[in-house]
């Protein structure tokens, strides 16, 4: 009997970006990963920076170090990343629960893919993300 080696079909770093069929969902997934990592990095720094307020140090206000246009712009990008990650993440949870993926059908040629069935949900969620990104920009401009 052959022994299965769990490392025999490893893709390594290529598995992060390549592999699999490239469709709209693939790009959605890559962006989900990038935005997830970006907001995680922000979160780790954010916890430390905001904890300083106990010492009366508010780095993000007045003449604080973080109160410069570059950091304000960066904060807006974090908001945009959140808007995308949240909307796409909710879509992933819904799809995982079997919402909007259609009923299973017999695998008869020509085969149908459920991707086409759940695509309207993707488009709807991207639309929602776009609205949030635009609202954020508007609030930033008038705020």
């Amino acid at each position, binding site marked *: 009997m052959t022994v299965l080696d*769990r*490392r025999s079909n*490893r893709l*390594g*770093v290529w*598995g*992060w970006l390549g592999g699999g069929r490239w469709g709209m969902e693939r790009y959605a997934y890559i962006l989900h*990963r990038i935005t*997830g*990592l970006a*907001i*995680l990095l922000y*979160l*780790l720094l954010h*916890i*430390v920076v*905001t*904890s300083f*307020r*106990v010492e*009366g140090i*508010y780095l*993000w*206000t*007045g003449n604080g170090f973080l109160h410069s246009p570059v950091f304000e712009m960066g*904060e*807006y990008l974090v*908001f945009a990343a*959140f*808007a995308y990650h*949240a909307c796409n*993440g*909710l879509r*992933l*949870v819904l799809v*995982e629960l079997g919402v909007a993926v259609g009923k299973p059908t017999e695998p008869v040629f020509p085969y149908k893919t459920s991707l086409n069935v759940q695509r309207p949900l993707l488009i709807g969620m991207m639309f929602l993300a776009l609205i949030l990104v635009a*609202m*954020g920009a*508007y*609030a*930033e*401009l*008038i*705020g």
Partner: protein
Amino acid sequence: MNRTRLWILHMAAGVVLFLVLGMHMAIMHLGGVSHLFAPYAGTADSIQNSLFRDRMPFFTVSYVLLLGVALFHGLYGFRTILFELTLKRAAERAITVVLLVVGLGLFALGTWAAVAAHGMALAGVKG
């Protein structure tokens, strides 16, 4: 806890984040439009507006909740990405330990700060 359970928890954390982080973002980033929980002039992150929220127990509790859920969701997600490389078991274990230490450490720091800030805001600290 087995991996399937942790993964379900990761998904559930995403849903909780959608609500709690959604509220946080609506207050902090859509403040120009929403003016939620920021009665003083200036931006939602001004010192006066921060102290106003820090005074309310609701915010202290929701900050600690957000802190825990976001740290778990983010770090567990990062761990998943690293584990996709099919590492050696020892490396996987080391990653788990490092992420646990980072997560618990930042959770302790953030919780302490949220509770202390609440006390200071109640005591009437001026910004």
